[in-house]
């Protein structure tokens, strides 16, 4: 079964000592904030073959090169919570990835979001890719022509020493 990725801020998903057991920080819900009760996510192959590509595509769209924090979880969590998924075009620097692997979770209720957050924390993984590694992914994507240098911000080009 494929996996689902959502860009987050890892620190919001830590478990501080004051937090009751089986609970999560309220700030974590900020990473799952919806628009029109929809949430943008990316589908990752179960062998994670497209993971680095999607990270490069998303970070390449940023103003500045940065770390990439993400939550990744089995798509079955969506089924278990009756969360609907539909394909839609993503907004990343990789056109093909936008068509192939971007989805929206839709008709989301507040309770579904809280339950999803809980399940992501307990059954999924919260990860960080350091800025330098993200830079390497972007350079690789540029070398094989998945990204073009014009799509990168001046700051990213300068940091990666791309003329």
């Amino acid at each position: 079964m494929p996996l689902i990725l959502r860009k987050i801020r890892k620190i919001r998903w830590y478990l501080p000592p004051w937090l009751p057991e089986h609970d999560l920080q309220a700030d974590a819900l900020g990473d799952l904030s919806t628009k029109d009760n929809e949430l943008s996510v990316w589908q990752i192959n179960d062998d994670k073959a497209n993971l680095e590509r999607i990270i490069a595509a998303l970070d390449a769209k940023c103003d500045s090169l940065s770390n990439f924090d993400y939550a990744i979880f089995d798509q079955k969590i969506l089924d278990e919570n009756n969360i609907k998924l539909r394909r839609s075009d993503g907004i990343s620097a990789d056109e093909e990835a936008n068509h192939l692997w971007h989805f929206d979770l839709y008709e989301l209720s507040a309770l579904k979001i809280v339950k999803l957050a809980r399940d992501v924390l307990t059954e999924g993984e919260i990860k960080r890719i350091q800025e330098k590694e993200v830079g390497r992914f972007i350079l690789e994507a540029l070398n094989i022509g998945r990204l073009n240098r014009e799509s990168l911000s001046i700051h990213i080009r300068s940091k990666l020493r791309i003329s």
Partner: protein
Amino acid sequence: MVKKNLKRSSDIKDMDLVNSTVQEKKGARLYDEIEKLFAFASAEEFEDGMESEFSKKLVSIIKKHGKAAIEILEPVFIHEKKNAEIISEALRWIGRIEHRRTHSIRLQLLAQCLFSPSPQIRDGAALGLASMNDPEAIYSLQLAIRKESYVELREDMKQVLLQLEGNENAVDSTKNQEN
């Protein structure tokens, strides 16, 4: 002659007084500017790698005022008198600024913030140091890793340490080749 010298000396004292008053006024204005910046930031949403009104203004203040700006920010960050998420965001951008003149004072501030009581601030400091990519921060990071109580944050700090140690080794091997 003595009289003349005395007059010059009192002139210098007057000038010093005028200069220090001007400096105090400038410092007070800068302090107010930073206060306002943090007040407005509480309404903003931050995303890694994306500029915000807050980050743009912060970078511009540091580039314009240099050391004076960092000296005002330092006690605010160390004693956590503002929202931790905003300070964490500030630290990320303080690490990203390309500004040679403030490099060492920014590095020093980030290193100090590795020991903040707030995990959010410690995280922002570690990310800022990763952006600066300067092996000078290795010792502070080693100490912070030893003290870090959050397992995940400790692991992230270790990744930054590995990155900086890699740079140090690269610098050492270049030096050896040159010798």
